[in-house]
């Protein structure tokens, strides 16, 4: 892993997230041949310096506009990247849909359930341990503006490996049956 991609739907707090993780030396550039821009910076994972990219927000991996097309291309080009899927914890379903799309493509993924405080306020209850067990990837609650959960997020980046989508669906099936 030599790159971290921050991916998620529009308005989930990706950029605040990026600013937290990337610190100061940050560059903004255009994706070649387009007017879509993205931000790139550096962070330390496991004592190593890695690139971190704030990918434009996209609803799914089936692009329907320029920015989404760039997001998908950036993902496809970064074959050895780790992907941090930022999900709005109050809008879990569509966020998880996208995270699963990315997992299915074979990327190592860490899921950040951002806006955890808002979800609590809205009385959304999420069993993160169960989610982790089903998905097989780290699931970390975060509150980006306050930096909550970031230490755990970064430390858990070390442990991730790609998971098989078939495994997820069979584990999900099991948990649905037992409940």
């Amino acid at each position, binding site marked *: 892993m030599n790159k971290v991609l921050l991916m998620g739907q529009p308005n989930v707090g990706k950029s605040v997230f990026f600013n937290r993780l990337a610190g100061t030396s940050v560059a903004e550039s255009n994706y070649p041949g387009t007017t879509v821009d993205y931000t790139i910076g550096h962070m330390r994972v496991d004592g190593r310096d890695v690139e971190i990219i704030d990918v434009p927000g996209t*609803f*799914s*991996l*089936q692009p329907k506009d320029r920015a989404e097309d760039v997001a998908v291309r950036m993902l496809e080009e970064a074959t050895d990247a780790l992907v941090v899927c930022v999900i709005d914890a*109050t*809008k879990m*379903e*569509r966020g998880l849909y*996208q995270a699963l799309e990315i997992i299915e493509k074979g990327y190592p993924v860490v899921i950040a359930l951002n806006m955890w405080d808002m979800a609590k306020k809205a009385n959304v209850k999420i069993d993160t341990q169960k989610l982790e067990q089903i998905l097989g990837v780290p699931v970390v609650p975060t509150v980006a503006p306050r930096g909550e959960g970031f230490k755990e997020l970064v430390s858990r980046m070390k442990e991730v490996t790609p998971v098989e989508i078939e495994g997820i669906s069979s584990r999900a099936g099991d948990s649905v049956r037992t409940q």
Partner: protein
Amino acid sequence: MTRKLSEMDYDQKGIVVRIEKSLRGQLAGMGIREGKKIKMLTKQPIKGPVVVTVDRSNTSLGLGLADKIVVLVEE
């Protein structure tokens, strides 16, 4: 009674019953899939987009998309 999403009235609620196959992936990313509760919020004039509420969040859809979604409307 079923209706196209594009033909629903303001504030009308319903459950999505059918989505054209080619659009399913794209719409799932917006939180819309078959079986989902949906509420019409606004329709913009001159063939503008419709805004619907799904899972407490508002999403706007082009009229072309809304034409291809069938909803079982609450009476």
